């Protein structure tokens, strides 16, 4: 059995309050399963859904109760079945009771493993918005206590992720639920995180288990006769893109056990005699010093090289302001007092709090291991714990040595010519931008690093899974939720449109005509607001630029350009090297059309947009994707009918471009009557 093998039960709330994020719940759990399939092949996973209409679990069969909890997948070693079970999460119709689900999950683990040792985990994703069923006896708190005791006895940990839409009104039920969940935390069996956007939901679950390993255990030496026992762990460490092995296709296809691996072999040959291979014992390392090469054998080098003693020594304290944030060099470590050592905990707590009060930091010199060839020199900053049962600790950041700093001189902004200094009006526009594009309004923070998934890795693992099924699949586009990380939120941009336009008007950017664009810059497609003046005369030219910036082409082929949008779209559809192309083409076209409408002034883009709508509608009928068009039309209409382009829909209506009905595409659930009255009815409803 593999070390660090884990059994995990996912407890997923599929009740009505979670319907909006089921896709994300599916994605995050899939990523977790995909990573297990790569890194932890022997881990076991079970899936429990709650808030479902049906009931299906052992406890309900044996004892009754535990309604609306469905075991979708028994605890089994991960395989395709596991990810299959996540593919179609049914939207439940009943508010979920998370305590019931926890009991069912716990019961599954105990039934399966009894008292055997091992890592067991529950992972609960819920909105915790609904009133819990009252227990038959005692209070809910007693129930939580009983569950926590059971979990402790079997050494089972729980992770709770509470998702609630931002701005939701907190009521007594939620407060009670939260309190119950935090009760689990206080009993040290659970960790609770609260998230408020689909993107941060994706980042809330740790999808890969890393066994924490200490970097150092020993003394933090304040002086020769005062030492504090500490353990040092990594606080941040970059999760790298997996290193893929080189593939060899030489093995015969019949060989089922071929490893397909490629061995890389290094041979050292003399420059003078290129045919002779020099054996390892006849090689010696040459160290470069300027143009000179100094040969030194490893034994000699070992004798003279720098060999510091293991230990962490304090150099002293200094003002926080003398350490600049940008001097932090590496990933961060955490110094915690030796577990179970009360005196050390107190000492760390006292120094950390004193540092915090006086705004000081400590400078330390660290040699983590005996025989390490260098020293790390860095700064300890206090980490005052806000949770009762977590100790105070220090963060450790590596600082640069004198050799690591390059003192480049830059022109002071105040000495810049007035042509480069902003005017008052421009400064005000910038101020407003900084104020309005606020990602951290009171009580909230968007894109907190703690809850932001790595879009590249998310995409890789989902592509890996896709490729395992369809070896010739194309790279899928970035999902909507992940785009929130790489681009500003379009809703915010919409809200702040006047402000952004103001900024564009305030500053004049011009391309330097003398400089030829470098190859890379060609792709970047700079667009300046300076072009605005001339663009009034030739609107399409300007639009082109804006669109390129809005939607930087991810593919060389298959982008919809402004010149012949309809042709491009059809070309994309015609390509259809895989089914994803159709989807992509439709998506691109929808985006393009939306952008056309949104950037339309006095209806200058109407005829083009009309063509696009017609083409899109036609394609959706042919491709049997009526839903795509119907939803798009409904959404666009809902969003824009009140705006400047309201009259565009009259145009659409007059050209009979409405919803796709059942008669045109059997998959559609729109009747002909509905299609005909679409514009009329919507208008009536809005009034």
């Amino acid at each position: 059995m593999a070390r660090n093998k884990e059994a995990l039960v996912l407890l997923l709330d599929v009740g009505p309050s979670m319907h909006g994020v089921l896709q994300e719940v599916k994605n995050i759990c899939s990523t977790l399963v995909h990573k297990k399939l790569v890194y932890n092949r022997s881990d076991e996973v079970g899936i429990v859904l709650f808030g479902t209409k049906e009931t299906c679990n052992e406890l309900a069969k044996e004892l009754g109760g535990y309604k609306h909890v469905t075991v979708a997948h028994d605890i089994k070693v991960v395989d395709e079945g596991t990810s299959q079970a996540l593919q179609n999460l049914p939207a439940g119709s009943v508010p979920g009771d998370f305590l019931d689900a926890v009991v069912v999950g716990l019961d599954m683990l105990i039934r399966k493993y009894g008292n055997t040792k091992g890592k067991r985990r529950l992972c609960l994703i819920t909105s915790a918005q609904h009133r819990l069923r009252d227990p038959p006896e005692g209070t809910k708190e007693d129930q939580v206590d009983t569950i926590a005791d059971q979990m402790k006895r079997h050494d089972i940990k729980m992770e709770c992720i509470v998702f609630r839409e931002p701005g939701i009104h907190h009521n007594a039920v939620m407060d009670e639920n939260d309190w119950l969940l935090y009760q689990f935390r206080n009993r040290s069996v659970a960790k609770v995180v609260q998230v408020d956007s689909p993107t941060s939901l994706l980042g809330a679950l740790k999808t890969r288990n890393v066994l924490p390993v200490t970097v150092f255990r020993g003394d933090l030496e304040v002086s020769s006769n005062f030492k504090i026992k500490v353990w040092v762990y990594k606080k941040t460490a970059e999760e790298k893109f997996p290193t893929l092995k080189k593939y060899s296709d030489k093995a015969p296809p019949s060989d089922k056990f071929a490893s397909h691996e490629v061995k890389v072999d290094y041979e050292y040959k003399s420059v003078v005699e290129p045919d002779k291979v020099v054996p390892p014992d006849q090689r010696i390392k040459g160290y470069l010093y300027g143009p000179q090469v100094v040969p030194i054998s490893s034994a000699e080098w070992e004798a003279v090289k720098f060999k510091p003693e293991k230990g962490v020594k304090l150099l002293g304290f200094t003002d926080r302001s003398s350490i600049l944030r940008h001097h932090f060099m590496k990933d961060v470590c955490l110094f915690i007092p030796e577990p179970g050592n009360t005196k050390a905990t107190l000492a760390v707590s006292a120094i950390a709090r004193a540092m915090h009060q006086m705004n000081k930091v400590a400078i330390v010199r660290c040699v983590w291991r005996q025989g390490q060839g260098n020293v790390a020199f860095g700064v300890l900053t206090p980490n005052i714990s806000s949770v009762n049962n977590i100790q105070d600790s220090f963060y450790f950041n590596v600082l640069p040595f004198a050799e690591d700093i390059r003192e480049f001189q830059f022109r002071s902004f105040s000495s810049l010519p007035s042509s480069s200094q902003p005017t008052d009006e421009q400064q005000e526009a910038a101020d407003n931008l900084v104020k309005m594009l606020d990602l951290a309004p009171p009580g909230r923070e968007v894109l907190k690093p703690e809850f932001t998934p790595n879009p590249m890795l998310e995409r890789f693992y989902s592509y890996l899974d896709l490729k395992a099924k369809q070896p010739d699949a194309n790279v899928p586009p970035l999902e909507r939720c992940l785009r929130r990380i790489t681009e500003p939120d379009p809703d915010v941009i919409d809200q702040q449109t006047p402000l952004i336009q103001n900024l564009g008007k305030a500053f004049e950017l011009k391309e330097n005509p003398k400089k030829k664009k470098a190859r890379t810059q060609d792709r970047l497609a700079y667009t300046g607001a300076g072009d605005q003046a001339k663009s009034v005369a030739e609107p399409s030219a300007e639009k082109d630029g804006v669109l390129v910036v809005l939607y930087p082409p991810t593919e060389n082929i298959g982008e919809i350009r402004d010149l012949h949008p309809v042709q491009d779209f059809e070309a994309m559809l015609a390509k259809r090297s895989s089914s994803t192309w159709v989807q992509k083409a439709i998506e691109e076209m929808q985006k393009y059309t939306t952008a056309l409408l949104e950037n339309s002034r006095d209806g200058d883009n109407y005829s083009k947009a009309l063509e696009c709508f017609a083409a899109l509608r036609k394609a959706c009928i042919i491709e049997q994707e009526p839903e795509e068009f119907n939803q798009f039309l409904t959404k666009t209409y809902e969003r824009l009918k009140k705006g400047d382009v309201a009259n565009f829909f009259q145009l659409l209506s007059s050209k009979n471009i409405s919803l796709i009905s059942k008669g045109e595409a059997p998959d559609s659930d729109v009747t002909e009557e509905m299609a005909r009255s679409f514009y009329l009815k919507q208008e009536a409803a809005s009034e």
Partner: protein
Amino acid sequence: MDLDPEGIFRDDSDEDDDNVQEREANKEMVVYLVDASPKMFTPATTQADEKQETHFHTIVNCITQSLKTQIIGRSYDEVAICFFNTKEKKNLQDLAGVYVYNVGDRDPLDRPTAKLIKDFSCIEDSFMSNIGSRYGITAGSRENTLYNALWVAQALLRKGSVKTVSKRMLIFTNEDDPFSAITGAVKTDMIRTTIQRAKDAQDLGLSIELLPLSRPDEEFNVSLFYADLIGLDGAEITEYLPSAGEKLEDMTDQLRKRMMKKRRVKTLSFAITNDVCIEVNTYALTRPTTPGTITWLDSVSNIPLKTERSFICNDTGALLQDPQMRFQMYNDTVVKFSVRELSEVKRVSSHHLRLIGFKPLDCLKDYHNLRPSTFIYPSDEHIFGSTRVFVALHSSMLRLGRFALAFYGNPTRPQLVALVAQEEVTSSAGQVEPPGMHMIYLPYSDDIRYPEEVHVTSDEAPRATDEQIKKASSLLKRIDLKNFSVCQFANPALQRHYGILEALALGEDEMPDIKDETLPDEEGLARPGVVKAIDEFKASVYGENYDQEEAEAAAAKASRGDASKKRKAITDAASLKSAAYDWAELADNGKLKDMTVVELKSYLTAHDLPISGKKEALISRILTHLGK
């Protein structure tokens, strides 16, 4: 040459593609033109108490220091040192008053060597006798030494293409008006030809920079002559003004900083909104300096070895060309990817900076860090007006206490970054922190771990009392590092590394003794006030008799700790058990292999031998112990 297949010097967390690019793109060639006229040898300060140092000395120091940094960090750059206004002449063109300094068989413009640095650092001792100083442009003489110097420098810089190499000449002088000794038509003619010479050089892509030194009695006046020579206009002249030579060290600092050529890493476009997209340059201001690369040599002949890499199929043993497909084991099956597909996966957005929004500075936590930061400064090279937008944003962010969150679509690791505005900080030694923004690479959720939660119990964690915190505060006040700055410590490992190499390169026997500056100040910590503060804090947290208790506990542990008691019991039991057999006889009769492993181990335990390994290993260990 610089292959390091075993990755000895590569710390994987230090891997930095920026560094590599920087090296390839910006090789540099520099000619230092040092004025050697007698004026340079007059004392640079008027204060009587200070040591009488000359400007010449200052410059020699600066160049030596810069060569030392260069040989460690940028040894691929090439350098030439050239004096003008000298008695002797030494240059290919055989022009008077110009002396190209060199050592050994090095080309005049070449990579710096250990010998060059060593000899140059003590050049002052022999300068007067070997090279000599004189006034360059004098009335009556037709020689124009400055003109000659420019010509020689230009000739030296002839090699290499300006497209791939940046070429510079740096003029060090304290003479602001080199043509003051002559008058009339000769003067205007000389000035005209000298300026023309400089202009020709600049047209060839060579940049000319001036590092002026002010004499104590009068300030260096750039506009007298040099502004025309290097082609400065009004606004830029102020930038060039040397700070008045109040303190010589400050001047050395300033010169040293100015000698360094700014190397930009990349030019990026920074999209602030959909239609405001500006241009910025990125610079790597802090990067870990690592010991240079190694190369393999033949230990007999010391001739460099060539490394050849070959790819061999693991299944068939066939030799492969560099394979283009990669694979990942997934669900026990092979999933293949092409290199192109992988790079496509990594490209999650277009390759530039995209502003997402702003956050207050306290959202940037101490642990939001992964790699050294990158500095960004605006540029108007391709897009006019970029600087203006940047300056406006910079000052808004500073005033409102916010940092910008942006997405950087770097193809190797697309990442969210925090852009933190940095105000300019200056001191008498010039600019300390340049104005601009620092790009701090933020971790993703997968990169953050929660080690503090590993050892939680349901008990409340102990917290220090106010009294203890007070004691800690007085401790903090006692052990205070005054005027701490990050760049005051040299890396002891690196200093030692290069110290050894330098000694060996120069053939010295003595290994240098490098002082480790990072060790704590023992003396300071032994001061009574500090000792008292430490003792008081210790007593308040650990109790008065802690040391004694500790010592007793340690002693108790050593003599009869729980573990050792247990171990003793096991050994006793084992010796009892093992005494039941006559081991020598068993061994003689070859019966040992019939014993169980447990029985064998009892013998080993009783005799304090390792009990690891397979049965055969155990038997052979017993036999060895029995002496058979």
